């Protein structure tokens, strides 16, 4: 399992691996928003929690189809399926590698991006905490979607259509936690719900994704 995690991380930072792509995309989205809505700092500050979470969501989506599609193309997926580790473990490790290369950097960089949107000072802690608790769910749900669409040629668009609705609860509670932080209200309830969604996804979806992979490998 460690070998698979190390290989995926190594592939991500090698040429064309896509590491940093999500961060750069997040930065561009956040930079474009003030151009779109105008330089009204009060307005920006009000919409910042929603924009930051939307940006993180879309940035995460960008690299999802790489989780299994590349391994399928070069035949590694067949070989992983016959390897001595269970397919459920393969899915979990690949989702973890995806989180380490997208979710974690996004979480660490988000406070800096908040500055660009004039996020209220009280919200930074809750934004970071929320992303740390919420992004694992994005990676695992994404891995499930990628497993469902792995056999399809150019399944990227279908993957987005499948996965984005499933991201909705994470978006709602994540943005809510940040908004509450900005207004100085207690934000522990939406954070607890975010953590619950992530735990639920991590516990169940690797099994569903492995089942989908088995069907797609036939």
């Amino acid at each position, binding site marked *: 399992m460690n070998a698979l995690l190390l290989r995926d991380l190594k592939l991500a930072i090698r040429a064309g691996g896509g590491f940093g792509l999500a961060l750069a995309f997040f930065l561009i989205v956040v930079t474009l928003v003030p151009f779109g809505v105008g330089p009204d700092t009060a307005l920006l500050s009000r919409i910042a929690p929603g924009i930051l979470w939307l940006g993180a969501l879309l940035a995460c989506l960008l690299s999802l189809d790489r989780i299994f599609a590349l391994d399928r193309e070069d*035949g590694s997926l*067949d070989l992983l399926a016959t390897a001595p580790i269970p397919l459920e473990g393969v899915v979990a490790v690949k989702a973890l590698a995806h989180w380490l290369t997208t979710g974690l950097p996004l979480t660490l960089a988000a406070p800096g991006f908040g500055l660009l949107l004039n996020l209220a000072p009280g919200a930074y802690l809750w934004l970071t905490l929320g992303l740390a608790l919420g992004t694992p769910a994005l990676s695992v749900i994404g891995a499930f979607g990628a497993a469902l669409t792995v056999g399809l040629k150019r399944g990227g668009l279908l993957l987005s259509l499948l996965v984005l609705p499933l991201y909705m609860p994470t978006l709602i509670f994540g943005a809510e936690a940040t908004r509450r932080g900005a207004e100085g209200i207690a934000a522990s309830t939406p954070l607890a719900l975010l953590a619950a969604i992530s735990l639920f996804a991590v516990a169940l979806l690797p099994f569903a994704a492995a089942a989908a992979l088995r069907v797609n490998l036939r």
Partner: protein
Amino acid sequence: MELKVSGLACARGGAILLEGVSFALAPGQALVLRGPNGSGKTTLLRTLAGLQPPVAGEIAVAPESMAYAAHADGLKPTLTVAENLAFWAALHGRRSMATALEAFELTELAGRMAQNLSAGQKRRLGLARLLVTGRPIWILDEPTVSLDATAVALFARTVRAHLAEGGIAVLATHIDLGLPEAETLDLMPFRARPAAGAERSGFDEAVE
């Protein structure tokens, strides 16, 4: 360990291709599957390797004892030869890959990126992976595609060494493998009759 297959039927895309395939291989034996394109060689091998369930029949060996190698070699272009092989070795809980590199004369290429290899070198690396899995039964689909005569001889030597250690190999091919001692199994007698055609409803006509 003996590979015993009885009454196996396998399907691809919902259509049954082969029925009643039975054979038994003792340690040290190799079996070459023969048949024209589309006769079900790949489907049979994938079923043996446990990648798809059989429609009927039985395979009396756990899929964990089989090492599968297909048309795609499972190589990552941005990893070196040694890194590619080390990954599969670690996944199968093994450390040493020096003998595998040597067997296919890849030692000098160990530091090269897989994307800079020729097709034949990639194939050799894909076959070297079999040695690091340490599994007794090799399931090989067209193993000698894009190999030159020297490399085919290397491959034949490696398969012989594997058989001499009590291994088993099942190979699908329609070109010469340099393994005259291997038994052959012609798949034509096992081809399923297209009896399902009679049951088709009118809705399928547009698909045909």
